[in-house]
């Protein structure tokens, strides 16, 4: 069924930025589930046209000014990787340090029921693969997906929109509280050719529901792969959605993630992103506060060394009055690592009584690390309180001196200060059980980092 419409080879676009690179993509997703509705084929074809007309973004695209994807075009990718052979024992334990009660495993973007443990969830909560959701014609899924796919959200989203094959779907009915954290373990494996995959995830939280999702992205190989994921979140009135992401992909992987959340009145979206892995990674959040009382907290911590490039981009759109947002991102850079933080806070006309605050801090530990920050405030209403702050620099010399003067050796003093620096962000993780393991990750990273 729905194969991609053939693409006009003469169309302007990615031709010069790696025509070979896209050969595999042009062949489209492998035959989708037979029950795929007609709209899906049309939506894929439409998105494919959008991507073909645009190609990968380069520096001239303002949103991608600091993140260069040219690395990708040099790779010959396997766009339809065969299911990789992964043993359940080889999967990492959850970052909690204990076995998850509920864990859905994706390998190269495909849901693998045999590797997953999904118990019966309370109140009719559904956790299934997108492929199954589409095959069973789940009405809530189709409606939301159709609506989100139609939105033009840039080239990488169009690339994901052109696929729409698999991913996870989590639906929490109105008024249901899911106590156990739902773990999504996404595994990337290498291959003869680096796999490329485009999972599409949906989180639908009904009015008054509560749910916590922990996304854990790991690489089970040394080599590279290209993960381009999109997660759509819809939170109904008074819903509380917590999303905690640990990105520990292979150091050669390219990980591009977009999460697009729409919040109804009184809803709360709490996001935390911990970035460790990936050669090039981008975690982009777009949150639309659509009704009064909607609130979001976006926090993140990142550690990057070697030649890693990590990008955190956020866009919070205060569409409705009386909405709130808070953001705190902190990162530590070593060696030749580069970090990007772009944060946009928009207040629409008539969205009065809005509060929006944002802070980004970066520590540079080496002579060759680099950080580029672009916080943005776009305010169209007057009764607002908005602020942003950004800092970049070395550790505070006075704090270091204080510790040294009390007999703490320099190396240890630096480690203490770096940990304290990041812990401010980690403290914001809503899931208390996550904090300690994350702090241990920081300590390990510091201990293992190569010394000059």
């Amino acid at each position, binding site marked *: 069924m729905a194969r991609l419409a053939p693409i006009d080879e003469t169309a302007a676009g990615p031709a010069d930025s790696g025509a070979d690179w896209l050969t595999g993509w042009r062949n489209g997703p492998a035959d989708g589930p037979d029950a795929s509705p007609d709209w899906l084929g049309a939506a894929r074809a439409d998105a494919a046209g959008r991507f073909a007309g645009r190609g990968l973004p380069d520096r001239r695209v303002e949103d991608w000014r600091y993140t260069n994807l040219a690395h990708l075009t040099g790779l010959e990718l396997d766009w339809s990787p065969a299911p990789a052979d992964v043993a359940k024992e080889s999967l990492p334990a959850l970052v909690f340090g204990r076995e998850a009660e509920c864990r859905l495993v994706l390998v190269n973007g495909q849901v693998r029921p045999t590797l997953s443990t999904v118990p019966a969830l309370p109140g009719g909560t559904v956790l299934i693969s997108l492929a199954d959701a589409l095959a069973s014609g789940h009405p809530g899924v189709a409606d939301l997906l159709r609506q989100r796919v139609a939105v033009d959200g840039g080239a990488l989203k169009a690339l994901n929109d052109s696929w729409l094959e698999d991913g996870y779907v989590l639906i929490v009915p109105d008024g249901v509280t899911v106590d156990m954290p739902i773990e999504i373990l996404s595994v990337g494996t290498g291959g003869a050719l680096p796999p490329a995959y485009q999972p599409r995830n949906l989180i639908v939280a009904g009015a008054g529901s509560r749910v916590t999702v922990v996304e854990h992205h790991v690489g089970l190989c040394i080599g590279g792969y290209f993960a381009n994921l999109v997660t759509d979140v819809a939170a109904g009135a008074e819903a509380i959605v917590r999303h905690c992401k640990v990105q520990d992909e292979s150091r050669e992987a390219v990980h591009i993630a977009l999460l697009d959340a729409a919040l109804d009145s009184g809803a709360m979206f709490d996001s935390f992103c911990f970035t460790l892995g990936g050669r090039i990674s981008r975690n982009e959040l777009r949150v639309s506060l659509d009704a009064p009382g909607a609130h979001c907290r976006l926090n993140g911590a990142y550690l990057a060394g070697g030649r890693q490039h990590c990008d955190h981009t956020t866009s919070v759109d205060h569409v409705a009055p009386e909405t709130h947002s808070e953001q705190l991102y902190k990162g530590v850079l070593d060696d030749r690592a580069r970090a990007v933080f772009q944060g946009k806070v928009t207040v629409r*006309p008539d969205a009065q009584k809005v509060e929006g605050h944002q802070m980004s801090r970066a520590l540079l530990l080496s002579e060759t*690390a680099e950080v*580029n920050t672009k916080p*943005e405030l776009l305010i169209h209403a007057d009764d607002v309180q908005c602020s942003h*702050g950004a800092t970049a620099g070395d550790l505070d010399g006075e704090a270091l001196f204080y510790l040294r003067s009390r007999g703490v050796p320099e190396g240890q003093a630096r480690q203490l200060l770096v940990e304290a620096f990041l812990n401010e962000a980690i403290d914001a993780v809503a899931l208390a059980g996550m904090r300690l393991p994350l702090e241990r990750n920081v300590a390990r990273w510091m201990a293992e980092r190569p010394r000059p």
Partner: protein
Amino acid sequence: MAATAQTVAQVRDLGKYKHGWETEIEMETAPKGLNEDIVRFISARKDEPDWMLDWRLKAYRHWLTMTEPTWAMVDYPAIDFQDIYYYAAPKNTEGPKSLDEVDPELLRTYEKLGIPLKEQEVLAGVQGAPKVAVDAVFDSVSVATTFKKELESHGVIFCSISEALQNHPELVRKYLGTVVPYTDNFYATLNSAVFSDGSFVYIPPGVHCPMELSTYFRINAKDTGQFERTLIIADEGSYVSYLEGCTAPMRDENQLHAAVVELVTLKDAEIKYSTVQNWYPGDETGKGGIYNFVTKRGACRGDDSKIRWTQVETGSAITWKYPSCILQGDNSVGEFYSVAIANNAQQADTGTKMIHLGRNTRSRIISKGISAGRACNTYRGLVRMGSKALNGRNFTQCDSLLIGDRCGAHTVPYIESRNRTAKVEHEATTSRIGEDQLFYCRQRGIGEEDAVALIVNGFCKEVLQELPMEFAVEAQKLVGISLEGSVG
């Protein structure tokens, strides 16, 4: 408070834009439009050396390959660059030796400008007038330059750039285009091709310029784009404070202003460049008004040198301006203090760039944006710490104040750090005038409009106090006038 009382009086007098009139002086104009012949005509009229013409032509040819930038958050109808006069000179330009020789019409023009800076007295040669040297630019050509003698005795060169091309071509050739190359950006390139006139300042080594230098720009003739080119060089160990102020007559068609200002400081030198910009902002619906697309940049070439930009931007329909500093010398310092007020349908996209290249370079950015009515005010800035900017230091503070619920305030900073030892700090806030502050003033019998002027003046104080005395007084009044009609 005297300043507030003056503001009240000024607001009362105002009625309409105070500086809205047109002086009828015979003009000599080149035909409308732009082509190589026009560039040659401008160069020939000014009797320029061949290298200057070549440079202009190179710029013109490069300009043809460029497209107008669209990234700024400003919205205006497309400009027809072939519908502009690129050269207009007052007929009476044979360099008046004294005030008597100045066209009386021009003197009356100055009279209408009011006496904010006492230029009237200076121009009239009143004994005891403050020592402010004025190089008045009247529609593109300098007509009156005063205090030349005293400056000459210190070896300071302060003249129009056309004169400098005649008398000091080696200096102009050495520095022109070295800070803003002719390929820099669309408007700067256009300016390089057709610049009509502007000021040239050279301060010799070790000289502390004995007075503040000042230029009054006025745009006059109908449909004349004004393409100023200013070049200021502070040689080793010297100091100069330069003031630039602007007014323009009222008219319906939009006017284009694309100036270029280049500053160079050598070792231990300092330039303080202050601007009060009060061009016609257009009427309440945004009709008319000046398009102000300006490229201003300074290079701290020498060690321990310093450039300080201070600007009060209250006029123009559109302001597109980013006075910048390239901190090349070790220990060099760049500072930027800005107040930008946009009312009614004005749009301002302004800010600065601080490029840290040398060691121990420091920069400080204080920006205060005020939006009222349906105006849109954007701070756009770049701070870059190069990999060799050891111990570089930047502090940035951008505050926006919103008056009314139809206006917009945007902050778009770019912060790039490539050095561990460099420290960059940025903070920005957006809020409106506190109701409690307003209530406090109102309760003490201060009218709403005056209360707003008072509060806004307080909000801008950090910047206004950086201005030279004469400008500070004028700027305070301007703040009040610019926000007229924005409340109630």
